[in-house]
């Protein structure tokens, strides 16, 4: 019997889990995938927005600006790379200058600190590869970039250390009220009982809400596609570079990642299938032409990979964060599209208030562990520190991924950590092995072998991600 059951292991679910793990509560998080951060939280722009975009008075506006303020300290505490590099919204003509002016006003109303206008010279001094005809930019010093899956994983790891239970590969198939006090959550791995159920199922939050008999709304998936360039071209953008936004989207940006790559994207197209994260030819063309409007000389021959993420756009137009009036104990966190990642700490704060209002008694733990176990990033260490580490554990002297310089020590650690990796993609998101220019061509056989050894299973059992994604189909001589 749990106090709180959270459905969905994206940034929202994991942030709520971590926040609630500061209190004496029994909590379970249920996730249909084999790992956290497998939904929208792994495929987005990874921008910690300043907050000038959202319409004043909306939850999006309020939670974005507040959420933003948590990141520096939170990332420090959880040892997650975060870079407060600021953002520019670029205007190339009179109309865009007007719109940028409106954004400035909106930002002030929303309470975004430090907004300023930059002129052409200033912009080009900082961003020399930008299109020279830029005329003005709205500068937001509080914007930043983060590694979205590493952040989500860090929240999960830390909440796990603090007692939250995780149930993976357990899609929720029903939510029912069984007594006045209790709800039951039905999953493919059995039923769970809890006093409160938090629906943070991302794209599927509408379906879960409907299953529970709570308020109905609809989530429409809106796809955004991306292309990532080789690290060698990391110099192309220093800050988050937005075009002037249109009515429907912030537009196609050119943006650095915390790991030193630059990406372009996303576009914005409504689709029908909530699991369709394919990248399409038209999409690729669309983002290239969008990217070129900001940085004309894009190294198109040095694209290392493409991906797509789906925005969970609700028919209500704003985040839906509320206790159900129809099903007591059921709380919706739906429609969390951009700036959902940025807002997540403020969303979790709001959930705590809602739970208190709904009658949950909260009592702080005195043994809360704020930090997750130390993580070594060989690539970023100086040689003295590396030398010391290898003396302690020789596996840190064995480089497995040559493109991102990831050592065996880091891969073994990724498996043994709290909520450790179980798949090739799990290793990739925790260590970056396989994320470089050769995309795992060199290291994937080695990573697979380490996983099999650590998990004490046959290599043929090892998967790329979910069930059905086994990498090897058999031993040689088996098909003869």
């Amino acid at each position: 019997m749990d106090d709180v059951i959270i459905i969905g292991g994206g940034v929202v679910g994991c942030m709520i889990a971590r926040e609630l793990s500061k209190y004496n509560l029994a909590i379970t998080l249920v996730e249909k995938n084999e790992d956290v951060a497998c939904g929208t939280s792994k495929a987005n722009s990874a921008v910690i927005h300043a907050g000038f975009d959202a319409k004043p008075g909306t939850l999006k506006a309020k939670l974005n600006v507040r959420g933003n303020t948590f990141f520096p300290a939170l990332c420090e505490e959880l040892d997650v790379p975060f870079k407060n590099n600021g953002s520019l919204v670029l205007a190339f003509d009179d109309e865009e200058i007007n719109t940028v002016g409106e954004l400035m006003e909106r930002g002030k109303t929303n309470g975004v600190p430090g907004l300023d206008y930059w002129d052409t010279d200033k912009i080009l001094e900082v961003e020399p590869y930008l299109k020279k005809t830029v005329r003005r930019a709205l500068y937001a010093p509080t914007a930043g970039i983060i590694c979205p899956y590493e952040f989500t994983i860090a929240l999960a790891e830390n909440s796990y250390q603090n007692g939250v239970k995780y149930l993976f590969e357990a899609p929720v198939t029903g939510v029912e009220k069984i007594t006045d006090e209790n709800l039951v959550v039905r999953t493919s791995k059995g039923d769970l009982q809890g006093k409160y159920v938090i629906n943070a199922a991302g794209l599927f939050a509408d379906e879960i809400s409907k299953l529970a008999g709570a308020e109905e709304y609809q989530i429409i998936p809106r796809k955004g596609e991306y292309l990532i360039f080789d690290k060698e071209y990391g110099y192309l953008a220093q800050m988050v570079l937005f075009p002037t936004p249109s009515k429907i989207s912030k537009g196609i940006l050119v943006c650095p990642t915390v790991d030193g790559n630059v990406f372009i994207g996303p576009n914005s197209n409504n689709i029908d299938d909530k699991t369709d994260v394919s990248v399409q030819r038209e999409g690729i063309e669309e983002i290239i032409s969008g990217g070129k409007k900001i940085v004309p000389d894009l190294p198109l021959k040095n694209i290392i990979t493409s991906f797509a993420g789906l925005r969970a756009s609700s028919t209500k137009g704003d985040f839906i964060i509320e206790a159900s009036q129809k099903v007591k104990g059921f709380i919706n966190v739906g429609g969390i599209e951009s700036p959902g990642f940025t807002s997540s700490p403020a969303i979790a704060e709001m959930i705590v208030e809602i739970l208190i209002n709904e009658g949950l008694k909260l009592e702080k733990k005195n043994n809360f562990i704020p930090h997750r176990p130390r993580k070594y990033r060989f690539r970023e260490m100086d040689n003295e520190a590396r030398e010391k580490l290898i003396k302690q554990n020789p596996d840190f002297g064995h480089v497995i991924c040559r493109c991102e310089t990831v050592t065996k020590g880091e891969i073994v650690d990724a498996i043994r950590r709290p909520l450790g990796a179980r798949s090739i993609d799990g290793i990739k998101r925790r260590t970056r092995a396989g994320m470089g220019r050769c995309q795992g061509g060199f290291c994937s056989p080695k990573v697979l072998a380490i996983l099999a050894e650590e998990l004490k299973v046959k290599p043929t059992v090892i998967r790329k991600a979910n069930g059905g994604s086994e990498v090897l189909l058999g031993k040689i001589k088996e098909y003869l």
Partner: protein
Amino acid sequence: MIYKELVVIGGGPAGLSAAIQAYEEGVQDILLIERDFELGGILKQCIHNGFGLHIFQEELTGPEYAERFIKELKKMNIEVILDTMVLEITNEKKIIAVNKELGILNIQTQAIILAMGCRERTRGALNIPGFRPAGIFTAGTAQRFVNIEGYMPGKDIVILGSGDIGLIMARRFTLEGAKVRCVVELMPYSNGLTRNVVQCLEDYDIPLYLRHTVIEIHGKDRLEGVTVAEVDDNNLPILATATYIPCDTLLLSVGLIPENELSKLAEVKLDDRTGGPIVNQRMETSTQGIFACGNVLHVHDLVDFVTQEARLAGKGAADYLSKGKVDNYADAIPVRVLKGVRYIVPQYFQGKEMLNGRQELFMRSVKPMDKAKLIIDSDKGVIKTKTLNYVKPSEMINVALQKEELCQANPNYLEISLQEVGDRS
């Protein structure tokens, strides 16, 4: 700090031959660094035969070919460290490497030979639309799984690209009982050796679809199929020809890229055409005392040429160490690429006293030609011509220029072209 006269980075056929040659030329204090647990490089996974026809007049397997050099090397007083990854090199020839036993190694050397080989082009570089499931492998990775680890990455296979590794793997998978549905190639000709097309596809009735490509990948967890279409003159897919082919595995054999991340750190200038360093006739890069050979320099189809080139680099390094630093690098003769030629190595000749008796030129054509005339022209007139039969981009052309031929003409530059015989344009 460890001090060395010469460090060779990479223990494939290029590194092995270069180290052996340098030793034979009198370099005493050589260190060879290899990141794998054994020597031999990519050859260890090439268990098919076809290696060594030129050098040994024998058809050896990859491991056999490598073994001959490893044996020879072991007889010499050449220090080898395995399981050791070079992380950094500088133009001052400082090397930082790492391994489990010794931790971080700081090495100062007088000369370096780069022999790090190449990596395979991936799906990302091609931008193939669709999902990103398991079951997509570069051909070399699949080769490693099958030949070294003993596992089958799939049993129902489509191969994109007709590079040699893809062709070899088509046969290997067929022999292992898997179904290879087809090889799909964008160009109007195969990118592999003719003998591989015959021995690996035709002999097994595996169709080769030229002027075709994969335009979409299907399947969310494991690959379920690919859509293949013909392409038009601009290499764009003709959607009306799109066909769905079910398969559980897609192998990519779409090109190799010289691995020059380290070279760049040492400010070695690269050639856009080869993807490898720009070198002179002794395989010396733009950073004096740093040499390159094998697939790090340009991608080879035959290991014999790798060995030949590596010997030049080994000798070059030995010459550099004995007298080199006073050599005259100034009066360089650039070797330019004209019509019909995709690239050439070396990209320039330097210093008359540094010339060899025979100057080896390695090049590739831009397209297949039944009969072609190779013209080595210069500001002082044509120096040499040669008629070649059955020229293909996938088969490297090697011609030599005698020292006298070059010195007599005394050119300021050379220009190399390949003209199709019968083509009057």
